[in-house]
């Protein structure tokens, strides 16, 4: 008879944390290998293709960084919301609203203003758009006790439909030959890229700086303290006289605003016009939820977990093409790695004792 019991682990060192994550990653790859085998693909080849396709080649790495930009921005913002147990599932919509605001600002003022003025203005507009879309659920939750999971999720669809309505209707571009989508943004708005890549460096810098600043906000400021207290125990927050409405508004404005930044980056840095919602963002708002969790709700770590997940997305695309695997492969790889990383987290915080012998 084998007996398995668990107990809490208290002394968690950085080294142990790292080793656990790597171990979980390796175990996840093992299971993925079995699935590749079942699909008739050499797993070693497939996995090496994923890594070569994302981190191991110059082209792949550049693509990985490009896709990491929105993931870092949104993921960092979500760490703040999740700390306060505000379950913001609406980053996708907040990203799109940021993109809408940015597009309007760019199309309206872009011709008249030089880059140094219009680019910050467009980023500001994007932040505002995301923030406004983010504070709606905050108001509904605090004032009317409406569950934020439902509202943030539903607002995604509303925003996507608003965007679609705009690009097939009033904003449909003359240069699109009848296809939905706005005209290209003015030249002054287009973000510069690192030559030979699609990395719009302004947004990249913004993402890294945002993550760093947010870390300070969470751990060093009064607002961060209040957000953490509310997340840990709302009753204690009430007793301590914390203003829930103010705290929720600020944190959703930040969380939504950073998603709005990501929307600006996608429109002004990658696509250069506003198209269908699915082309503006390939589900970054949802993938970033995993990024935030993987970062253990620490915005600084979101930089790394954002890169890892961007790598998986890019690598998945690569094997889809080179091995002719179905599109769902990426999702399977993502899902398995996530499950193993979460399991690793459990083993990081719990000791498992296995005893052999008889029980009575």
């Amino acid at each position, binding site marked *: 008879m084998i*007996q398995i*019991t668990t*107990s*809490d682990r*208290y*002394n968690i060192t950085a080294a142990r944390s790292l080793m656990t994550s790597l171990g979980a990653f390796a175990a996840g790859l093992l299971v993925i290998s079995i699935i590749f085998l079942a699909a008739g693909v050499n797993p070693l080849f497939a996995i090496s293709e994923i890594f070569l396709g994302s981190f191991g080649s110059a082209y792949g790495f550049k693509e990985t960084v490009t896709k990491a930009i929105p993931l870092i921005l949104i993921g960092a913002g979500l760490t703040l919301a999740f700390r306060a147990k505000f379950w913001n599932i609406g980053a996708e919509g907040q990203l799109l609203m940021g993109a809408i605001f940015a597009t309007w600002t760019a199309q309206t003022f872009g011709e008249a203003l030089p880059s140094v003025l219009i680019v910050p203005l467009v980023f500001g507009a994007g932040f505002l758009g995301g923030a406004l879309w983010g504070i709606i659920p905050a108001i509904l939750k605090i004032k009317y006790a409406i569950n934020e999971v439902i509202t943030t999720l539903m607002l995604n669809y509303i925003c996507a439909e608003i965007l679609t309505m705009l690009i097939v209707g009033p904003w449909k571009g003359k240069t699109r030959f009848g296809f939905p989508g706005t005209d290209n943004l003015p030249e002054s708005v287009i973000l510069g890229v690192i030559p030979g890549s699609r990395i719009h460096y302004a947004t990249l810098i913004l993402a890294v700086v945002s993550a760093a600043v947010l870390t300070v906000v969470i751990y*060093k*400021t*009064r*607002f961060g*303290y*209040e957000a*953490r*207290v509310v997340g*840990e*125990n709302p*009753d*204690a*927050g*009430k*007793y*301590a*006289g*914390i*203003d829930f409405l103010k705290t929720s508004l600020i944190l959703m404005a930040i969380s939504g605003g950073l998603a709005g930044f990501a929307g600006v980056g996608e429109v002004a840095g990658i696509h250069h016009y506003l198209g269908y919602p699915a082309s503006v963002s390939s589900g970054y708002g949802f993938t970033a939820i995993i990024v935030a969790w993987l970062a253990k709700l620490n915005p600084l770590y979101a930089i790394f977990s954002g890169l890892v997940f961007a790598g998986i997305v890019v690598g998945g695309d690569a094997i889809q093409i080179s091995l002719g695997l179905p599109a769902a492969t990426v999702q399977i790889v993502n899902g398995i790695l996530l499950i193993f990383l979460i399991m690793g987290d459990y083993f990081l915080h719990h000791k498992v*004792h296995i005893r052999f012998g008889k*029980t*009575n």
Partner: protein
Amino acid sequence: MKKIQRLEMVDICKSFHGVHANKDINLTVNSGEILGLLGENGAGKTTLMNILYGLYQPDGGQIRINGKPIKISNPVESISHGIGMVHQHFMLVQNHSIIENIALGYKDTPFFFPKIKIRERVKEFSRQFDFRMDLNQKVWQLSAGEQQRVEIIKALLNGADLLILDEPTSVLTPQEIRELIDILRRMKADGHSIIFISHKLDEIMDICDRVTVLQKGQIVGNADTKDMDKQGLARMMVGRDVSFKVDREKLEKGSQVLSVEDIHVTGDKGLPAVKGVSFNLYKNEIFGIAGVAGNGQRELAEAITGIRKIDTGSIRVNGQNITNMSPRKIYDYGVSHVPEERIRFGIAPGLFLYDNAILKQHHLKKFSKRYFLKYNQVKNHAKTIISDFKVSTHSINNQIRNLSGGNIQKLILGREISEQPDLLVASHPTYGLDVGATEFLRQHLLQLRRQGSTVLLFSEDLEEIFELCDRVAVIFAGELMGILEADDQRLCDIGLMMAGSKRVGDNTHLPENNQV
């Protein structure tokens, strides 16, 4: 014949992150015996009982039943060995009826129509131990004492021969305590063994046959209660003499600090909980509000501290009208609060100890500058509280959820009273504290009084009220039955006043609805 004639714990050791919670513990309970387990907060009593109940695995040592070593890996195994536990915080489903709650935990409950089959058995047990309860009542309608009885029936029905009771009396009224003691005596006569954890030495002396005292995870004494007195027990527990009497010197009444005028407050269930209460408090005094729990004390405390809105009436602090201000504003006007449900309201469990040491004070100038918190000051403040209030923890960089209940209490009390408030609203401040900490806390309240603060003390412990308070008010059904000086002879009738059948002072009519 009981399954457990003799239960032994032999050389039990258990440590958490390198700190011994239990070290070489040996104890024995025999059938028909009540063993008292005493110790300061954090002495390791709960850890030891959790090992016996299968919630923790010991690092070393053995548990034996009737001389035969057994292994207990989880509560299910523990129950099958005949061990039952009634936790300090009840584990009942609030929206279910008594019978449903019992059926839920019972091993022979049938899948279909569970209630019918077990109802007869429950009735039989209720008769045997003289529990009078309507089995169809929902748990949320029950008093703490009744909920505890449901827990006891659950354990007995599952065949518990040994019952562990973790601080069973801390939530009960004096009447309910007497009833519990009767039940325990009956169980004892029936051959059950009982392990009784408590801080109240009188109770231990009253019902236990033997007592085992723990200190810092080790046994420091075993004794038969008939050879012991209260002083001796206290000395064994704290390691020094403890004074049960406190010196309250006469002080001149100072200026008015709090004025409560005809306030009406609505309770959680939408019914009026406080009905037209008025009183004034002055500097240099401790004002006690006595009463059976649930007569509006909590609502009154919450109204004064801003957690609950007042329907009509007004509250002034130092002349300033604070009626329905936010809790933070009221705090800034000098009102501190030790809430009744401290663990629920007073801490953020996943945050560090030092984070919790400034809850509600984090916005003050000394802890924050513009948008930032001054973590150096915060940490120093936490260290001061820990050493002043003897909170036992290995570091301030410890999540507060890792501390024992008593130590969390000490931290919250330390935080609220170290700020020298003008008015301290303290609800049952010594609940769950060991004798050493209780003594320290009472001294501290008297010191606050000496330094010119006012204390509004809510307590069910009449001994505490009479020892500490300058004036006493009795609350019943949301109304004050009278406000008297502590040395007023009429306080002999405090029992009648608490039951609502006597009113003293200017207003002599009884409340319209005086059935308890």
